């Protein structure tokens, strides 16, 4: 879902026929480049979503080490038993 939002944002910032917002060949005219803000937002967003993915993968790994399965239904049954 995050990826689709990033694509949406990036497409909002793109203006047809213009270059990425890096000054090239000394052209400082604003008309030559696309809007840099959405690209900046997407970069920030990607950093956030990578760290969240890493965190959730670590969580899954921990569950697997404990219960030797990644099936949530089985894990719930095992965890209930452990509580009692």
């Amino acid at each position: 879902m995050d990826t689709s939002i990033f694509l949406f944002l990036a497409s909002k910032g793109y203006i047809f026929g213009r270059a990425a917002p890096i000054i090239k060949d000394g052209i400082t005219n604003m008309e030559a480049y696309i809007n840099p803000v959405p690209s900046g937002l997407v970069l920030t967003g990607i950093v956030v979503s990578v760290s969240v993915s890493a965190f959730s993968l670590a969580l899954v790994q921990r569950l697997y080490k404990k219960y030797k399965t990644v099936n949530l239904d089985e894990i719930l049954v095992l965890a209930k038993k452990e509580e009692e």
Partner: protein
Amino acid sequence: MPFVYNMPFFSILLCMLGGIITPFFRKRRIPQIINTCIIAAVFAMSLALLITSLTAEESFTYMMGHFPAPWGNELRAGPLEALLAMAFSIVMFLSLVGGMRGVNHDIRPTRIPLYYTMMNFLLSSMLALIYTNDMFTAYVFIEINTICACAIVMSKDSGMTVVATIRYLIMSLLGSGFFLFGVSMLYSITGHLLMSNVQQSVIMLVETGQHTVPLVTSLGLMVLGLAIKSALYPFHSWLPSAHGSSTTASSAILSGLVLKGYIILLVKMFYRVFTPEILASLHITDVIFVLGALGMIMGSIKALKETHIKRMIAYSSVAQIGYIFMGLGLGTQVGIMAACFHILAHAFTKPMLFLSANGLVDVSDHQYEMKALRGSARKDIISGIGFTVGALSMIGIPLFAGFAPKIFLGIGSMENNFHMIVTFLALALSSLLNALYYVPAVVAFWSKPKQQAQGGSIALHQEKTKKSVFLLSSIGVFIVLNFVLGIAYGPIMKMITTGLNLLG
């Protein structure tokens, strides 16, 4: 620029720095001390800010790095923000002090510095949510808040907490995804991210009738995202397991503070990005009102069915969040005042309930079932009193913190007949339901244990664990603060009113 204007930025930065340096310490003492110092510093800074902004009756925006408005990032502070930041630091300090033994017991010793790291980041992200004036900064800190909150849930190393964390993480990510989508849509139609600039564009868009569908969609997505993260009724499914299974300090902070951070952001958006009139014309407030009223009742019904004490308290949070959202949904100034006051009242009551429950569970052989806790208040009188005060406050008895918001909810609803009928019915029904599950619990805690249990409890008395002085003293402070909020609600309400007027 007066020096005190730097306070919001300093308090956020200080917590961040604390979070960065604490993992380098091996022993648990030093991170604890650093954390306590930081919270105390945040408290002092917010207090200074509160006093100056109240006496001058002014609010201000603070430019980060001195870049002017359309390019720079801004913080914004006034009496309301300072009051909330101060309350948050008090609650966090008391919860951590009270839950200290739980933390030392539930978490592996090598992980304890990391736990305090997470606490520092959590405080910094909540302060940033309170103070920020920029939508995208709000999104980034929402994500930081999510990760920290999940980490403090999973810090207690059992299978149940990891499952609860995964559930919490997925729901939270869904919520922040919705929020991000809402922000990006709003950006695409207004071209701004700073709240004040967005507001001008939004007012213009509404007046000219342009882009109505994207505007409503983006507002709806943002409200939905924040509602999921603050556990408004139909989206509450992650809350009981996450709050019920973690260690005491985590449960207290999650229920008391983390849920509130998002609601405060929502209040700020209502005032700073949209105006109350626009919200009413788009019917968003009606939706929030109905869901809040439903939450008040359904949360209490679910709590009635629970026999696990911490899960019962967690379901009660769902009901209390319903109160706050109903106040927001009334769409009147008094309703929002009631919601803000209830944020404070709940922040001071729920951690006390969790801490007292911890005290009661400790003297009952670490059993969490209601039956096993029978008579436990006689063994640990202060925890018993703490639980009783918390329960009475949640029911809404006069003199306790939970009373004032209910009156103001009633007053706030009187402008509209339909709102009045629904509010009064929901208030009456939910107070009754609250009483139905809290009163029997309190009575059971204070009654004599059954005869056959007597033999067991004598044996227990021999090896009775030493009661934690920290736990008892923090419960004591919570009780006092609860009475302060319940009796002196006039001046606090006045501060909130000043703050809200300056917010608009």
